[in-house]
């Protein structure tokens, strides 16, 4: 058979190993003479005949230099003194994590569908579930979701699935991204999201408003969600009471938590959570411009709840013919590949490698490390809050509730918060998230975060610059 070569049969690239002779042998074995014949099932009029407007092939060296050139336009938080938080935080990542995550046996694997050959990832994910179970004091943890926002969406869906009721109560003061994701996620199931306000003085949940809301929607509430610490950074002291209100209604109590705060605060499971969700970015993941993140999803071990959990779950078992330990994906009859349209969620690919990072992080820190980290965050936050408090023209803290690792300060109306932002930026400081665009009642307010990576000297410089700004503007 005569072989005619098309141009792309000669395309040589390190990722494409077949040589010309091999291609010929293979075509012969198939019984065709060109590769294009293999595409003959595509109707001719649909076949592309023109060249697409895509970049040309680049060598590795060229590719690297293009990527580097683009990335160089970014300014990292190493170059800026950043007090940004509001959901994503700059924490130190021990070098061990990157080293272990680079084991390509982990990261080039697929979901462990063939358990015998994938015990390493399965055990690591089981240990992830176990570590999260320890910090939340809830026994059942799935092996990850995309982020905390989608975990909240899934939690709301699960509440309705279990209770068959359709109102889900959340704080009006959620991170805007999370609130919008929740609204999208709950549309399909026809769930109605109702919000409760915060106390204008303390910044904590308005318990009276919650109990009024629950009275007017008595038999319709599927669950109540509260974050602790909340979006303002404040520790919610009414959580136990809200848990009781929820359970009196036979609703599901959902807690949003910051994993690091659990070094010093009680665990969600200790105060009645049925579901606890969290953002795992702070425990071992870079900020990565907002992704990938790690949605933590933990549930009380209760038969009714466990059958309704979304996502993958790893179990410990044995070999068939021995008592040797083995790990496998389990309770799969909830999942899309088996239950299809009746599945508890459509999630398939999740964030397993991010879960592995957090597993290593929590293993490294241990109980003492996590406690000390929480203490460091809290004490330095208090330091910044008090330093700002001493400045005329700044109301710090804006709310009287006790903050964990972020809080709100307000600039006096004599000054322009826009000017302040520009002034700080010119001095290479990102002073926090301006809240007014999202919450108009919080005029001139900034949500500012402090972690163990924030040095005391950064804080001093930040407050010094604010003082200068106020002086310059006639304060």
């Amino acid at each position: 058979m005569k072989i005619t070569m098309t141009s792309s049969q000669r395309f040589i690239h390190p990722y494409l190993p077949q040589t010309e002779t091999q291609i010929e042998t293979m075509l012969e074995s198939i019984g065709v003479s060109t590769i294009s014949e293999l595409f003959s099932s595509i109707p001719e009029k649909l076949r592309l005949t023109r060249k697409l407007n895509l970049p040309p092939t680049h060598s590795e060296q060229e590719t690297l230099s293009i990527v580097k050139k683009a990335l160089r336009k970014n300014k990292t938080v190493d170059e800026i003194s950043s007090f940004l938080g509001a959901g994503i935080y700059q924490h130190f990542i021990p070098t061990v994590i990157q080293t272990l995550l680079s084991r390509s046996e982990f990261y080039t694997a697929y979901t462990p569908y063939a358990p015998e050959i994938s015990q390493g990832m399965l055990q690591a994910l089981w240990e992830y579930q176990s570590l999260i179970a320890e910090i939340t004091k809830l026994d059942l943890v799935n092996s990850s979701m995309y982020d905390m926002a989608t975990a909240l969406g899934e939690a709301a869906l699960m509440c309705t699935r279990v209770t068959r009721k359709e109102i889900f109560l959340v704080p009006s003061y959620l991170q805007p991204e999370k609130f919008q994701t929740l609204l999208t996620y709950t549309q399909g199931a026809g769930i109605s999201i109702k919000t409760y306000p915060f106390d204008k003085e303390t910044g904590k949940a308005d318990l009276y408003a919650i109990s009024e809301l629950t009275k007017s929607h008595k038999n319709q509430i599927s669950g109540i969600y509260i974050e602790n610490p909340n979006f303002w950074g404040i520790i919610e002291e009414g959580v136990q009471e809200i848990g009781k209100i929820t359970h009196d209604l036979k609703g599901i109590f959902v807690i949003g938590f910051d994993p690091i705060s659990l070094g010093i605060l009680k665990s969600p499971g200790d105060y009645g959570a049925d579901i606890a969700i969290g953002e795992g970015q702070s425990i071992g993941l870079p900020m990565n411009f907002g992704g990938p993140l790690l949605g933590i999803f933990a549930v009380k071990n209760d038969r009714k709840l466990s059958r309704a959990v979304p996502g993958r779950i790893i179990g410990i078992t044995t070999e068939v013919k021995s008592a040797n330990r083995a790990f496998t994906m389990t309770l799969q009859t909830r999942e899309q590949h088996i239950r299809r349209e009746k599945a508890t969620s459509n999630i398939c690919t999740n964030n397993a490698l991010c879960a592995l990072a957090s597993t290593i992080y929590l293993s490294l820190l241990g109980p003492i490390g996590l406690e000390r980290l929480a203490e460091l965050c809290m004490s330095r936050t208090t330091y910044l809050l008090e330093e700002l408090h001493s400045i005329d023209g700044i109301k710090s803290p804006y709310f009287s509730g006790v903050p964990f690792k972020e809080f709100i300060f307000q600039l006096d109306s004599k000054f322009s918060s826009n000017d302040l932002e520009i002034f700080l930026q010119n001095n290479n400081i990102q002073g926090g998230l301006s809240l007014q665009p999202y919450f108009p009642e919080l005029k001139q307010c900034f949500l500012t975060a402090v972690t163990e990576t924030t040095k005391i000297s950064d804080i001093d410089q930040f407050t010094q610059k604010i003082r200068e700004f106020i002086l310059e503007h006639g304060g």
Partner: protein
Amino acid sequence: MFKQTTWEKSLIFELSTPGRIGYEVAELSDKEKILLSQSKQRIHPDLMRKKRLDLPEVSELSVVRHFTRLSQMNYGVDTGFYPLGSCTMKYNPKICDFVTTFPEAQNIHPYQDPSTVQGSLQIMFKLAKWLAELSGMSKVTLQPAAGAHGEYTGIMIVRKYHESQGNLEKKTEIIIPDSAHGTNPATATMCGFKTVIIPSNEDGCVDLEALRSAVTDRTAGMMLTNPNTLGIFEQNIEDIIKIIHDVDGLAYYDGANFNAIMGKVRPGDMGFDIVHFNLHKTFATPHGGGGPGAGPVGVITRLEPFLPVPTVDFDPDTQTYFFQYDHPFSIGKVRSYFGNFSIILRAFTYILRLGYEGLKAVSEMAVLNANYMKSLCQTIKGFSVPYGKDSFCMHEFVLSSKQILRDTNISALDISKFIIDRGFHPPTVYFPLIVPEALMIEPTETEPKKMLDDFIQILKDISRLVYSDQEEERNQILEAPCNTSVRRIDDVKAARNPILSYRMLKQQEE
């Protein structure tokens, strides 16, 4: 000979010795201690932790060794051939991982001022453009975190579209072929639609008559992969889409199999309205042992107003990139922030590295490898290709071992376990559901011929062993795997008595 490393399965908790640390967090200064106690005093003691958490206490080396050992009991593409059908387990170029470790990629907060993230925005803008061009769509969002999340985004756009037409009450059904991934019907349900399953015809493709009778005024849209999950190109695609469009339904392209068609044909030209991509399949980003991936979604011009916010745009006047929130009928957000940037960056790097010619060659080689394997595998005694036997497949094909089951009572699962023993990851088994004893094989473009030949040889060996009249030869298959860190696993026990965390394990032991 393949022999997976086997270590004792000690749990990280069992390595714990009180007082050890794996990483030291700085101690609080005296001043910090005072500040802390001031704050703590103001919190109700009921809310404070009384007893330290029961986390393991291990040294840094213990942690490193523990997870290194676990990695040795795991199998990735870097370990060997991974022909897991529908998952496109191709080689993940190292340059793509390398660039994600730059501080300019990692140490960026999503709420930084746009002027300080122009590099990231440029990368996102360009990748979205390239994906649009490859698929024939007009605009792409990079927000979705995974393939199923892309499906979710796409079907929410379908929902919002019908809502904007005032038709949501009426448009309640999504049509899905019986060969589809489970994520398709699960997605339809999450978006509030009823799933209508249509049977495949004898060629494994959409049965046009069945489709016509399933389509009604209630049809909101259809989800389809093309090539489908059997690796067969739906030749009647234009008719299929016309049937859907005739009732004002939208056609959704599930991009799980996009690796077969790059530079060859575009979903947009086929008539599709919405497309998702799996960056962790087609664009070579590693799957991470289960994720993270990324599932960008492209739409035609008419559907741009429905995209999730924000998208990334470029202002030619100021030569700057910015977040575009102006999508008047936006479905909202499907997650926090803008997408899985480190995955997006990998795909960007991959496309640069291959370029247009390279991507086209990728699809050609993927299809060549699959057809080569199919042509040889289907002649092995006991194996058959129930759909598309006499035609060409695209990037994958589905083998059936039903004859072997009938003749020898040895199942596709048994076969897959024996494949493991020879040092390969097994193909996808029992999917798609319409093929009995299915073994779905996707070699991808990055595997050399020798690897494909070695795999074919294993299937030949299997055929010989299963039909052997010597019991010990048959037992080699039934007892597999024995070269892995564990032998066959008791899944029934795992489900009947779920032990899902160390807490539960301890409770059981007590």
